[in-house]
């Protein structure tokens, strides 16, 4: 069956039907992580370190265990020893061993008969600490004299002579930098910093775990990827992977933060110790902010060369990122994608992954890309201003496009940066007149997207309707997208497809809904599995007609003879074939298992207008435009939603969101009052333009869209502020105190 990019032939792709879970979600019926209860359930609570870095001398749980209703207390002693690599990191992060490594690090947990009893019992667990020197800033952590958080944590990549807190080192690039900079008319060298931002999902982590003494059990939790949760939890607990079945609940936002484990293995361990009673655990907001992954903070140096007419001749970036007390800051991505918007012959990246006394970072929407974009796109903007060049024309001049070599090596296929820049340039927002203290900023961004391990099934029902089972939790409407793709493939109505998110027992391994992969990979899997069903249905029709299966085609939801030579038969509809399937060979279903590699990256360009209050430094976002390549928008409203959500998160990161640590190494703002994500009155409408440069690696041309959108806002806001004030802000967040101080300094010369 032809599944190429014939846009004009789509019947349902590109329409915007109501999502299947809409009714449940507007009536309060949808069951999220904390909404699941079972009979005999206990409640868990966690004891967390109040210190940034401390030796755990003694844990005394006797008072807690003496409390009525307390059924189990666990510490690290209840976990197996001898784990290595990332498994050890996960175990150590889930429950501290010899040392507490950050403010909020779990040191013990308790299960009791009510949430209040568990909380009260947790307060009775006495932990004796020996406080150690700590470090929370990435630059400080690399300096001589900084406390070594964990000797020997560095891997093969780290050259000798670096601080033991540097645990991974990256060095990538190509070309001849000296030659490139020599060709430039303008060479600019600048330093930038970004603070850690939290994913800020509104639903705190929640789970309900049950495990018996035999190591078998079940886990219900809110997660982006239940196979990941299963593998990580069982590894940490030292039980066989298959012994735990994980069922995902509805998920109240993740943005990368729910691709890893936090309390899940604790609930299982508590359950086992409490004799197999299920244990429900729900984090509060303070725990989420203190102990689950925010993204990395970064300190960066950028050097770029440009000719008078705007050609980028060379680029060098040094990126220092801390990812908390464990290796994993996404500097690997940063050192690939930092300059990916541009075709640059001479380019080099140096990256340092640094450990500090902060929580283990978790992926956050385009992990590693926004920080670099802030540094690089700010530098490009500054160069354009210095040289009197238009920021969009300059980007067009250097833009990555089909056939150009990327700054990370391989050549690009068809991608949509040029198209996004042109659409931004031609949009009304780019021409709106600006008033006093107002400015406009432009920036582009990129995410390379992902395929990943994928398994899906499509099963025919007796009435010809279709059940699709995928393993990627639906966070933003993906069930609607899967249903649209299945409906398109079968040639049936959207309403005749039901999409389920299956548990780990029903499908092969699936990577999470991450990397902007779900619509691409689970979508591709759905289409391929549907094709298998169609092939089988054509065979059933062929058998009925007594002709060769090759002589049957599938069109508009029916099997038909392929032509006059095949014979004269009335089409057999999907309903007719399925109604008889019990008599014609049994159930009909199709499967897909694979790791599709035909994903292709998504470029986007943002244009933002701001107004700065010159007396207070307050930034008002006046209007905002997102233009991004979706390949093919399956459900355009949810594509727009991804664009808008990414932009809003980026605006928050740019202006107000930050992790603030005190001298004592404790997080000072573990509440939404002070961890300031954008509220409704902070934002204007977010205008969107969907560019469609089809991805040849997907049957319908899809490319992931989820992550790119958080990348341009950071520099776009900085560039707009520069346009409004002449000030170049090089540290995030660009808060009113920072802007006002810079305005004063500017005024005082």
């Amino acid at each position, binding site marked *: 069956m032809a599944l190429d990019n014939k846009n004009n032939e789509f019947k349902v792709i590109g329409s915007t039907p109501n999502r299947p879970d809409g009714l449940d979600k507007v009536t309060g019926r949808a069951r999220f992580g904390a909404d699941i209860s079972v009979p005999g359930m206990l409640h868990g609570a966690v004891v967390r370190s109040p210190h940034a870095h401390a030796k755990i001398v003694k844990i005394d749980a006797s008072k807690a265990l003496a409390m009525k209703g307390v059924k189990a207390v666990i510490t690290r002693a209840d976990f197996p020893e001898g784990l290595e690599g990332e498994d050890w990191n996960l175990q150590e992060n889930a429950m501290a061993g010899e040392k507490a490594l950050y403010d909020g690090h779990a040191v013990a947990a308790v299960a009791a008969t009510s949430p209040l009893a568990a909380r009260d019992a947790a307060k009775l667990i006495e932990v004796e600490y020996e406080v150690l020197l700590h470090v929370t800033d990435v630059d400080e952590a690399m300096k001589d004299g900084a406390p070594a958080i964990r000797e020997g944590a560095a891997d093969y990549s780290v050259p000798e002579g670096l601080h033991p807190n540097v645990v991974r080192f990256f060095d990538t690039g190509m070309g001849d930098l000296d030659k490139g900079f020599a060709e430039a008319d303008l060479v600019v060298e600048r330093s930038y910093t970004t603070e850690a931002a939290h994913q800020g999902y509104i639903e705190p982590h929640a789970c309900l775990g049950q495990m018996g003494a035999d190591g078998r059990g079940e886990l219900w939790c809110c997660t982006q990827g239940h196979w990941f949760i299963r593998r990580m939890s069982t590894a940490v607990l030292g039980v066989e992977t298959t012994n735990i079945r994980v069922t995902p609940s509805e998920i109240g936002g993740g943005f990368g933060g729910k691709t890893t484990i936090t309390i899940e293995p604790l609930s299982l361990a508590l359950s086992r110790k409490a004799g197999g009673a299920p244990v429900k655990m729900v984090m509060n907001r303070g725990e989420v902010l203190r102990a689950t992954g925010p993204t990395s903070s970064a300190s960066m140096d950028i050097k770029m060369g440009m000719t008078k007419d705007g050609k980028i001749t060379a680029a060098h970036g040094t990126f220092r990122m801390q990812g908390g007390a464990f290796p994993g800051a996404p500097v690997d991505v940063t050192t690939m994608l930092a300059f990916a918007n541009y075709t640059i012959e001479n380019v080099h990246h140096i990256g340092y992954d640094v450990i500090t006394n902060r929580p283990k970072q978790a992926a956050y929407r385009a992990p590693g890309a926004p920080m670099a974009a802030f540094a690089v796109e700010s530098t490009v903007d500054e160069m354009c201003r210095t040289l009197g060049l238009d920021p969009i024309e300059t980007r067009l001049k250097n833009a990555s496009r089909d056939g150009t070599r990327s700054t990370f090596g*391989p050549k690009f296929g068809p991608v949509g940066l040029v198209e996004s820049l042109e659409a931004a340039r031609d949009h009304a927002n780019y021409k709106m007149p600006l008033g006093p203290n107002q400015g406009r900023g432009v920036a582009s961004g990129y995410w390379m997207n992902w395929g990943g391990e994928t398994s899906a099934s499509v099963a025919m029902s007796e009435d010809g309707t279709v059940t699709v089972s995928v393993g990627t939790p639906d966070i933003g409407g993906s069930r609607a997208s899967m249903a649209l793709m299945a409906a398109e493939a079968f040639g049936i109505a959207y309403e005749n497809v039901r999409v389920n998110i299956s548990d780990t027992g029903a499908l092969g391994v699936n990577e999470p809904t991450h990397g902007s992969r779900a619509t691409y990979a689970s979508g591709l899997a759905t289409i391929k599995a549907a094709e298998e069903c169609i092939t089988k249905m054509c065979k059933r029709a062929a058998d009925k007609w007594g002709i060769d299966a090759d002589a049957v085609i599938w069109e508009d939801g029916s099997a038909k003879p392929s032509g006059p030579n095949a014979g004269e038969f009335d089409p057999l509809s999907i309903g007719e074939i399925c109604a008889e399937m019990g008599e014609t060979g049994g159930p009909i279903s199709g499967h897909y298992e694979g790791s599709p590699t*035909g994903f292709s990256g998504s470029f986007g360009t943002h244009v933002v207008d701001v107004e700065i209050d010159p007396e207070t430094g307050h930034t008002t976002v006046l209007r905002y435009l997102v233009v991004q390549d979706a390949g093919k928008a399956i459900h355009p409203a949810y594509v727009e939603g991804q664009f808008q959500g990414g932009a809003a998160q980026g605006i928050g990161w740019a202006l107000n969101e930050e992790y603030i640590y005190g001298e004592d190494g404790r997080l000072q703002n573990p509440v939404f009052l002070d961890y300031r994500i954008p509220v409704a009155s902070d934002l204007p409408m977010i205008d969107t333009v969907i560019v469609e440069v089809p991805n040849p690696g997907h049957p319908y041309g899809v490319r992931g869209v989820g992550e790119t959108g958080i990348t341009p806002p950071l520099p776009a806001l900085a560039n707009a502020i520069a346009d409004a004030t002449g000030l170049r802000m090089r540290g995030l967040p660009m808060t009113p105190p920072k802007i006002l101080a810079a305005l004063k300094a500017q005024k005082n010369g």
Partner: protein
Amino acid sequence: MVEINLWSGLRRFADGKDKVEVSGKTVGEILDDLVARYPGMAPVIKAGVSISVDGEIIPTGRREPVKEDSEVFLLQRLKGG
């Protein structure tokens, strides 16, 4: 023989070279031969890499075919949000 482009930090594990010649017909075969020829590369491959073959990025698969004239790059193992 297939030419693999290494990222610059890997030169120290490959006698200072940023391109190396290896033999093999699949991703797995060329990675195995790379380690055989340059044992210093073993921890790199063990830690996990992605590979791009003619512009297509292969995150994990070892069975994907590689041709003599394919353009091959070793890349960092990626992770998304």
